[in-house]
C-alpha cells in the first residue's frame, strides 16, 4: 500500500484525530486563531494550527473554527461564547505545547467532566455507543419483550385504554 500523500499525513488518520483531549466546553461556539506565515513569534501558533487544529475540529464538529493569516503583528486565539463573551488568548512567542496546554486548561472540558460524560466506560448507559445495547441483555433483568410479551397489565396500551373506545 503506498504512502499517504502530503506533509505529515498522520494528522489525517482516525487514531491521531481521536487521541486528544481537546473537547471544547459547550458554551464555546466559535474558535478563531490569528497568525502570520512568517515571523518567529508566530512559530508556536503555526505549529499548533498544523498539528492540533484537525484534532480540535474532529472532536468538536459543531464549533466553527477559523484561521486568519497575516493580519496582525502578534498571534492570538479568540473564542466566542454563547452569551456573547469573548475569550482572548495572547500566544505571542509561545511554543505549540504551551498553547495546547493553555487551550485545554481554559476552554476545554476537564478530565473529570469527560469521564462523567463518557458513555462507553459507564456500564449504566445503554445504547449504540455503549457496552450493552439494551438492559434486556443483562442477566437477571426482564427478557426482551420482542421475545417474551409483557403481561397485559404492564402494557400501557391496555392499562390506559377505555372500554368504550375499543
Amino acid at each position, binding site marked *: 500500500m503506498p504512502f499517504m500523500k502530503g506533509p505529515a499525513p498522520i494528522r489525517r488518520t482516525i487514531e491521531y484525530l481521536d487521541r486528544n483531549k481537546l473537547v471544547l466546553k459547550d458554551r464555546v461556539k466559535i474558535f478563531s486563531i490569528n497568525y502570520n506565515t512568517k515571523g518567529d513569534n508566530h512559530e508556536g501558533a503555526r505549529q499548533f494550527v498544523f498539528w492540533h487544529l484537525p484534532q480540535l475540529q474532529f472532536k468538536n464538529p459543531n464549533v466553527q473554527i477559523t484561521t486568519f493569516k497575516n493580519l496582525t503583528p502578534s498571534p492570538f486565539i479568540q473564542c466566542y461564547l454563547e452569551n456573547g463573551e469573548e475569550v482572548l488568548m495572547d500566544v*505571542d512567542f509561545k511554543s505549540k505545547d504551551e498553547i495546547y496546554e493553555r487551550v485545554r486548561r481554559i476552554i476545554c472540558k476537564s478530565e473529570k467532566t469527560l469521564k462523567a460524560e463518557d458513555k462507553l466506560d459507564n456500564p449504566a448507559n445503554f445504547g449504540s455507543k455503549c457496552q450493552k445495547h439494551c438492559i434486556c441483555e443483562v442477566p437477571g433483568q426482564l427478557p426482551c419483550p420482542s421475545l417474551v410479551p409483557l403481561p397485559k397489565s404492564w402494557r400501557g396500551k391496555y392499562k390506559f385504554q377505555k372500554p368504550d373506545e375499543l
Partner: protein
Amino acid sequence: MFGSSGSRVLNVINISYLQSRSKRVWVRKPLGSPMAKSKIFRITPKPVIPEDEKAEIKRLFDNYKNSMKSIRQYFFEQSLKQAESGEVAQMKHRLEDQEHERLMEENRLENEKTAMVREERLKIQAENTQRNVLASLIKKEGEAKQHEIQIEDFLTKQMSTPFIQPENIEKAIEDALANPVNFNFALDLDGYVYRGKDTSIDTIPEEKRERLNSN
C-alpha cells in the same frame, strides 16, 4: 430441506434464551435458498394511484409529519428546560460559572505577562534596528565620499589631456594637414620595423633601422 435443527429454536436474534415447545413456527425463508418455482416469473401488480390523490396523500402526510416533529422537538426542549431548572442542575451551573470566572482571570493574567514580555522584546528590537540603520547610514556616507574623490581624480586626469578647444581648431586642422600620420609598417624576422607604405628596404642603411621595442 432448509436445515432446521431438531430442538425447534425460534429463529430470532437472542437465540439461546427461549425454546418453544409447540409446533415449529415458520418465521422466514432461509437467506440462501432459491425462489420457489411458483414464484419466479411472478410480476406483482404495482398499485396505480392517480396523481392528484397522490398529491393529496403526500400533503396530508407532510402536514402530519411536520406537526409531529415540531411537537416532539418542543417536548424535548421543555424536558431539557425542566432538567435545567432542578436544584442539582442549578448548583452545577453555579459551580461551572465560578470555575469559568476563575479560568478567565487566569487567562487574563497570562495575557498580561505575555504582553510585558512582548514589550521588552519590541524595545530591544527597536534599539537594534536604530543602531543598524545608523551604522549603515554612516557607511553609506563614507562610501559616497570615496566615490566623490574618485570622480575628482578621474576628472582632473581627463582635463590634463590635450583637448582641442574651439580656438585652436584651425591651427589643429593645419597641423593635421601638414603632418599626415601613416600607420602602415612591416616587420622583419630579425625584429626590425620598416614604417611607411612605399618605403623599400634598400633605401635605409643598416644602422638606421628601428628595432621593435617589446614594451
